[in-house]
């Protein structure tokens, strides 16, 4: 019985963590679907989102559960401008150039933050932090994680609705499915790609804001999330945002179970193993079709 409850606890924790992964992965999948590039700066954008939320909290006393909105707006703008100013001019050049650019921009963000705020670890203090929701005598869910989960769920659903049911979302999917035909519909491909990049990066920024209450903050905190987001995109079927969301939840659960049975240090290794197995055995992904 003891073992059952510890496993159940790990699974529930995994779903909570996974909801934030899902948001990060959906953002990356949107970008990948519409632009066919892997955004290697994704985790760095998320990290910037954490810092924005942190500064809003420290500077203006804004609770992170509202501050993430500021983070989303800032990152949307940053992503939009990054696309317009840097990525767009090299669109059409080799994939390698585009990979280098996102990778390099991620490093600049990380180093820039380190220069501005130092490499120290930060953590914020909310009265909420120690609170738990107890379910029976064996299971307890951490309050800030629960709130983050609820918000992530809502925003994930909103993003899904946006992509599937609005004209702009439809245009983004049109570009993903047939890049050649999209302009013939009157779609301004550059504009939609810039907006998609901004929205994808804003999703990472939201996740960063929601992670702030439960995570240490330091300049390289985003690095592991770039890898995770990439794993989710591959697992989810290369550009399917609902696939990436599912993959995020699965990743959260698998990591938590791995930590429970094998120890924390194995969690990232397991991500890698999943990633490589899917890539070699089922490159079209598990949870989605090829396209957005």
């Amino acid at each position, binding site marked *: 019985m003891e073992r059952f409850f510890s496993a159940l606890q790990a699974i529930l924790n995994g779903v909570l963590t996974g909801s934030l992964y899902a948001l990060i992965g959906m953002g990356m999948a949107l970008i990948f679907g519409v632009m066919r590039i892997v955004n290697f700066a994704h985790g760095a954008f998320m990290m910037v989102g954490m810092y924005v939320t942190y500064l809003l909290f420290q500077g203006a006393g804004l609770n992170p559960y509202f501050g993430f909105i500021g983070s989303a707006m800032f990152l949307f703008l940053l992503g939009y401008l990054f696309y317009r100013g840097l990525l767009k001019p090299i669109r059409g050049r080799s994939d390698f150039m585009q990979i280098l650019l996102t990778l390099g921009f991620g490093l600049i963000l990380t180093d820039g933050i380190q220069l501005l705020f130092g490499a120290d670890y930060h953590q914020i203090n909310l009265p909420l932090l120690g609170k738990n929701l107890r379910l029976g005598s064996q299971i307890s869910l951490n309050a800030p994680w629960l709130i983050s989960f609820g918000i992530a769920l809502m925003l994930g659903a909103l993003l899904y609705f946006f992509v599937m049911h609005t*004209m702009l979302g*439809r*245009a983004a*999917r*049109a570009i993903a*499915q*047939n890049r*050649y*035909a999209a*302009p*013939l*519909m*009157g*779609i*301004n*491909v550059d504009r939609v790609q810039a907006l998609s990049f901004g929205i994808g990066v804003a999703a990472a920024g939201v996740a960063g804001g929601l992670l702030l209450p439960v995570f240490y903050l330091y300049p390289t905190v985003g690095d592991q999330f770039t890898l995770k987001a990439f794993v989710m995109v591959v697992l989810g079927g290369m550009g399917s945002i609902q696939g990436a969301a599912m993959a995020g939840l699965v990743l959260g659960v698998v990591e938590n179970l791995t930590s429970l049975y094998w120890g924390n240090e194995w969690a990232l290794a397991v991500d890698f193993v999943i990633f490589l197995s899917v890539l070699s055995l089922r490159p079209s992904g598990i949870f989605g*079709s090829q*396209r957005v």
Partner: protein
Amino acid sequence: MTAPLLTTDGVSATYGDFQALFDITLQVHPGEIVTLIGANGAGKTTTLRVISGLVRPKSGTVCFLGEDISKIPPDEIVERGVSHVPEARQLFPYMSVEENLALGAYIGRARPKLKETMDEQFDFFPRLKERRKQLAGTLSGGEQQMVAIARALMAQPKLLLLDEPSLGLAPKVVEEVFEKIRQVGNSGVTVLLVEQNVVDGLSISDRGYVVENGVITLQGKAKELLANEHVRAAYLGL
């Protein structure tokens, strides 16, 4: 004669070092159906792509409604009233018929009337109405061509560019497609058609041009072209 709706004047176009079009000059008048015929690689598709802004002319101008559109991006050209049904249909394969049509009405001018125009298209292509929820990629070739045409008409164009709509279709379906194109023409939409199916193409057309190796070598009334010695020998195998 009325002022032409579309004029290309001395258009040349290149892909890298390769020159695909030389001095293409043609006119399409309001209400006409005009067909471009020519062998594989003659430059028919390139001509349409220059008109819709996908390829920039190296020299020459493209005038639509009296204004030079050769430097305007493709999405604005659609807004001005030119819709292009590309070779091989180019649908959005993982979207339903309905969503493909909705994207046809993406431009600001057409979007507010999306519901009505979609109903119109479903009246015009009843088969598509039955298949409105089906993914476009799973339709038959003929149905896909109908979707491609309906999608272009959703933008309520003044000029419709059609690139080999009969390609790869069974004879009975080809007949059906040409009948639809004729009706589109009758409804007041001007049509510039590219066809290798010379007889069917010209028989629904008012006029035609023959393109060979990137040059217009012959032009005239559709009936005259069908009777022309060179056309009969080169394109009809007679």
